[in-house]
């Protein structure tokens, strides 16, 4: 049996791209054939996938990764093969209406497409109950919680040595180093992190530093963040690096002291688990799927007033016992999401559907 995966954008070092590659490995190891088709293919992935426009037939089942507006959804609606959906979540358009009205329109269209696909989808999977509930709300009948596939072995690679040296020197000068990894986007609320960080510096640690890593989704929002940093007089202490190469990212995970996520909308949030893998204590705002990603392994806040967040970071970093307890819990959380476990979960989500399909084929 052949199960082909379809996704709008196939990018390297991206949670969805990695999940698709890992899913193909899992399916192939389980004895299925599997190919990848995408609308846009970036980086070195051209030999891993082909344009979906070249697909005519051959697969027995199609698995679509829904995350954004794509003409591919319309194409899949016309296909005769049974369809499965993995829902990575779509950002609510309200977050982008002010900054990128066109992107907001595209998000609206993506949600309409998701609803339309519900009518023809046999099984829809999602990495969190939060996303699964959204699927149920728009009419999906068969759903399954299926974790993202993350290969933590990838993180054993050598971090960028120049970045490590620079970060070590910074560390010697003292001060806590905050980190957040995620695209610079209004739903991820980097402005709240900057605000909380400014208060933390003022009250607890004047030498503290903040690093925000992630590509720019909205240029206007990025400019507003730059203005905010200047207005709060913390220019020398905040760096917004944009996208960084994977080895550079590893250096930051290894060198920072705390991971702070004040995002209001996440379908799961892989960087939270990555931070836990590197032994960083995690502080998060309790919204969307963030509590599910954190589990019982981080400090969850119901209020993200800058003073509250600053006090939370101080509590975690100043109290060694609290810190080590959170780090230890983080390691257990990572174990729960280890690749062998999540691979088994993927196959177990698919097995009732595949058994039914195989029985029908005789």
């Amino acid at each position, binding site marked *: 049996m052949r199960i082909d995966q379809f996704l709008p954008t196939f990018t390297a070092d991206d949670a969805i791209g990695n999940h698709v590659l890992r899913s193909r490995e899992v399916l192939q190891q389980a004895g299925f054939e599997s190919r990848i088709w995408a609308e846009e293919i970036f980086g070195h992935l051209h030999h891993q996938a082909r344009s979906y426009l070249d697909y005519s037939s051959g697969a027995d089942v199609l698995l679509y990764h829904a995350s954004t507006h794509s003409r591919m959804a319309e194409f899949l609606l016309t296909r005769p093969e049974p369809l499965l959906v993995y829902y990575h979540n779509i950002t609510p358009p309200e977050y982008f209406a*002010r900054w990128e009205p066109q992107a907001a329109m595209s998000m609206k269209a993506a949600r309409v497409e998701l609803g339309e696909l519900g009518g023809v989808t046999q099984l829809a999977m999602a990495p969190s109950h939060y996303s699964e509930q959204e699927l149920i709300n728009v009419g999906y009948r068969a759903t399954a919680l299926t974790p993202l596939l993350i290969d933590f072995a990838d993180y054993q690679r050598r971090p960028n040595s120049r970045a490590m040296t620079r970060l070590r020197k910074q560390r010697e000068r003292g001060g806590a180093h905050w980190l957040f990894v995620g695209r610079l986007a209004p739903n991820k609320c980097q402005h709240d992190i*900057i605000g909380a960080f400014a208060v933390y510096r003022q009250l607890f640690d004047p030498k503290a530093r903040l690093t925000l890593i992630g590509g720019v989704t909205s240029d206007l929002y990025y400019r507003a*963040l730059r203005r905010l940093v200047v207005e709060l007089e913390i220019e020398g202490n905040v760096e917004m690096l944009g996208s960084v190469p994977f080895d550079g990212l590893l250096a930051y995970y290894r060198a920072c002291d705390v991971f702070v996520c004040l995002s209001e909308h996440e379908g799961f949030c892989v960087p939270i688990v990555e931070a836990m893998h590197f032994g960083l204590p995690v502080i998060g705002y309790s919204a969307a799927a963030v509590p599910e990603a954190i589990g*019982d392994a981080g400090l969850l806040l119901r209020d993200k007033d800058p003073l509250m967040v600053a006090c939370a970071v101080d509590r975690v970093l100043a109290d060694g016992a609290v810190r080590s307890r959170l780090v230890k819990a983080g390691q257990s959380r990572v174990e729960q999401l280890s690749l062998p476990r999540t691979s088994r979960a993927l196959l177990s989500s698919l097995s009732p559907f595949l058994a039914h399909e195989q029985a029908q084929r005789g």
Partner: protein
Amino acid sequence: MAGAYQERLARDVVEAAEERAAEPSAYLDRVRKATARVASSHATPDDARSALLAVEDYVGIDVDVPTVSRWKPLGLLKQVIKRLTRWYFGYVAHRITLLGYAIVRFGIASLQLTDDLQESTQALRAKVEDLEARVDRLEQRSRLS
């Protein structure tokens, strides 16, 4: 999802923040106001102040055009065009930006004026209602006497 330890820890943090909040801090107020301005993503369509902020967001015309291209010669061509036209577009963008900021300033001043008018109207209305009540009372008294 959160365990008992997490709940206790979160409560400790709330208490610590409440203690700190008792001390007035001008900087904290400044931070709250500044972040709230960036956060106004859920503004309603009739919120005039947010609409003005949106205009302000778009006012700065960015002439730093991206020149990266997957095809190297095209990237070089873009860089050449950018260098040749920078002085011209830079000047035009600067003029438009100045006009934009002037419009925003005008909008803010108009809003302030409207707010002041609304306030004085409300105060006048309260005074008129007060006077009407007094007249009613006086009329009743004169009828009784």
